[in-house]
């Protein structure tokens, strides 16, 4: 009994001793990063927690982007929400109109931090900016690039992928016909992003009216009347001719490239970490192909931003602001860029990585930045601000895929896709009209 008392006194004392060492304010950060990227997020939180002693961030993985949004909404309705939540770029308008968020620019100004928002690269800044103010904290940004198997291209007699779609197509057919690979290209998992949105941005084609939604909730999808239809016809031909293969459920298309089965894959630049770790052949990456007469606009970003949720204490928001300030620092950005493959979101971070000579050793890491910074973003390439984008994309993908797989003519499929997408937009408009 005595030993029990002694040990509990000892435990209580050691607990007291441990307490002051803990940070005073801890905020939760719900994110959607898994695998190696999840570990990097933990490391990021750890770096922040060690950089000062007033605040701490606890990073909690909640599954994929959809899972994070679902958990966040459930938590918000139950008033158990985290302070920081990572929402993918297409959730922008949903978050902005949710009435559940604190605007990042106001949060930072209120906490006395001066962040030079003009330092953020244009495709990132314009995506998350409204009326000149940053709405969410840019976090992980990427853009699709073309990864290719150098050995396969060499075997077919090519040095590198061609710059235009028609020439690139000829190369894919050659690789296939010479029997070098049964899968010249694998169908991307997030093809709505690379095949539809980025194609439209790079070729300067409108995706939706009202400047792709930037000018109002009454925007309508118009991609069924642009050059995108021709591009989809080309994709259908590749699928029919078995130049392009579908990976299938539960199989990451990127993995079929890394495994050496597929000669090329259009994938996020954030796939670098996995390719570098897994590919047992000589690989490289390059810019996405363009049309022969292409205006070569910038590509658009994917990825996510951090949103600050309402309903927390002012101490919590100080912690959040400190964390965002830490994120915006050039050192943090450079580390994050190199550790994950995501692009540096500030000019300063890009310059710093460049002056370190990082791109001399890792030339493919620079492609995404170059592609994002190509030209000046215009109405067609600034990005997309469309309501319930995740929902619309399910309908759009289903319809276009039905056309690609031959269930209906491709033009009709794309028309149906736009029509169903527009239903979603009208629904979003209606929900938000009822908010006032």
């Amino acid at each position: 009994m005595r030993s029990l008392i002694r040990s509990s006194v000892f435990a209580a004392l050691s607990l007291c001793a441990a307490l002051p060492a803990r940070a005073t304010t801890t905020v939760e950060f719900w994110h959607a990063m898994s695998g190696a990227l999840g570990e990097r997020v933990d490391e990021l939180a750890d770096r922040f927690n060690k950089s000062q002693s007033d605040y701490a961030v606890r990073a909690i993985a909640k599954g994929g982007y959809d899972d994070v949004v679902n958990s966040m909404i459930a938590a918000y309705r139950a008033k158990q929400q985290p302070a920081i939540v990572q929402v993918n770029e297409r959730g922008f308008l949903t978050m902005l109109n949710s009435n559940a968020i604190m605007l990042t620019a106001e949060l930072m100004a209120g906490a006395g931090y001066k962040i030079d928002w003009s330092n953020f690269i244009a495709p990132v800044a314009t995506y998350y900016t409204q009326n000149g103010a940053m709405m969410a904290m840019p976090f992980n940004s990427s853009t699709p690039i073309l990864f290719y198997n150098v050995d396969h291209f060499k075997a077919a007699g090519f040095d590198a992928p061609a710059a235009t779609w028609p020439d690139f197509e000829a190369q894919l057919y050659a690789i296939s016909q010479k029997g070098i690979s049964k899968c010249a290209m694998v169908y991307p998992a997030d093809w709505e992003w690379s095949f539809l949105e980025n194609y439209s941005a790079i070729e300067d084609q409108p995706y939706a009216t009202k400047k792709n939604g930037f000018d109002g909730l009454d925007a309508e999808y118009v991609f069924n009347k642009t050059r995108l239809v021709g591009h989809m016809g080309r994709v259908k031909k590749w699928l029919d001719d078995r130049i392009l293969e579908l990976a299938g459920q539960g199989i990451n298309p990127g993995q079929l490239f890394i495994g050496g089965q597929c000669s090329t894959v259009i994938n996020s630049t954030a796939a670098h970490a996995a390719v570098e770790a897994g590919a047992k052949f000589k690989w490289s990456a390059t810019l996405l192909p363009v049309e022969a007469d292409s205006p070569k606009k910038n590509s658009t970003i994917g990825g996510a931003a951090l949103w600050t949720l309402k309903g927390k204490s002012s101490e919590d928001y100080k912690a959040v602001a400190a964390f965002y300030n830490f994120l915006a620092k050039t050192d943090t950005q450079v580390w994050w860029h190199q550790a994950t493959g995501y692009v540096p979101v500030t000019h300063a971070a890009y310059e710093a990585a460049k002056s370190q000579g990082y791109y001399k050793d890792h030339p493919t890491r620079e492609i995404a930045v170059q592609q994002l910074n190509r030209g000046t973003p215009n109405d067609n390439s600034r990005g997309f601000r469309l309501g319930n984008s995740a929902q619309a994309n399910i309908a759009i993908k289903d319809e276009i895929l039905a056309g690609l797989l031959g269930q209906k003519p491709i033009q009709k499929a794309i028309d149906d896709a736009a029509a169903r997408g527009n239903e979603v937009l009208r629904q979003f408009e209606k929900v938000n009209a009822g908010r006032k």
Partner: protein
Amino acid sequence: MPAASDAAALDGAAEPKRPSLAARVLTRSGGRRDERGLKQSHFENAGLACVLLLPQLGVLLLFFFIPAVRALIQAFQLVDPFGGSVQWVGLDNLLALFRSAPYWASVQATIVFTAAFAVVTLGVALLFAFAAHHVLRGQNAYKTLILVPYAIAPAIAGIMWGFLFNPNVGPIAYLIHAAGFAWDPLRYAGHAMTLVVLASAWKQVSYCFLFLFAGLLAVPRSILEAAAVDGAGPVRRFVSVALPMLTPTLFFLFVVNLVYGLFETFAVVDATTKGGPAGATTILVYKVYLDGFVSLDLGSSAAQSLILMTLALALTFVQFRFIEQRVRYSV
């Protein structure tokens, strides 16, 4: 099985129409026949019974009734997922469904899926039950093997089937290709539907097998022996003697399979095809999930649940009123 026929013989005088063992299992929930048993063992103290029922009722209230009522309400609302704005829209959500081509495509996919699933499951289970009944050595080993899939989580089963039949990396798909068939569930709607039906049926065969095997054991040996003496072979005995006696069980399992196919196959679809290609395997219950949890269109999702709920009630009604009352086979 002697026990069943003995019981039938003993009770024969008092109750001439005694159902088979399997049919009696079924009537337990039907109520009427078990009144005597109920009276013998019911609680004298109603208060205690209530207290003992409370935890179960609490669980039902929390996980069934409250969500059901909320779904009912939400079906007539247009809500912003964060709960910030609520508009009453009357029947708009339901009417939008009836106008929606994808919804009707989903209804069609569900009819095909459920019918194919019920038929395949029952057919295979019947075949296994017949075969296992005739195996003399190692019957238990066969029974165990057939029952194993039931213990596997649907999500795991779905992933496994999706992988084995994946046209790029699946070993079984490789064999099918080698046999000269262009198997590709990623491109062809029919192949995808076949895959989902097989993956779902594979799990449910165990359950049906159990009932059918028990039903076969309950067929009086004397009748089978009499048929054998008359020169009927094993197949003839099965088709002409055992199968008619199994009809109550088959009807019961058919309804159970319909309900299972309609409501419990979410996990398999999610893990195998995610409703694709191009929505070809998006059955109704999966569409509820897609629209509600991925698209956050809570009103439409709730309206769809309402329709499914009505369907479930109708099927339960059919099961209780039609099947358990009318289809009864006595020995």
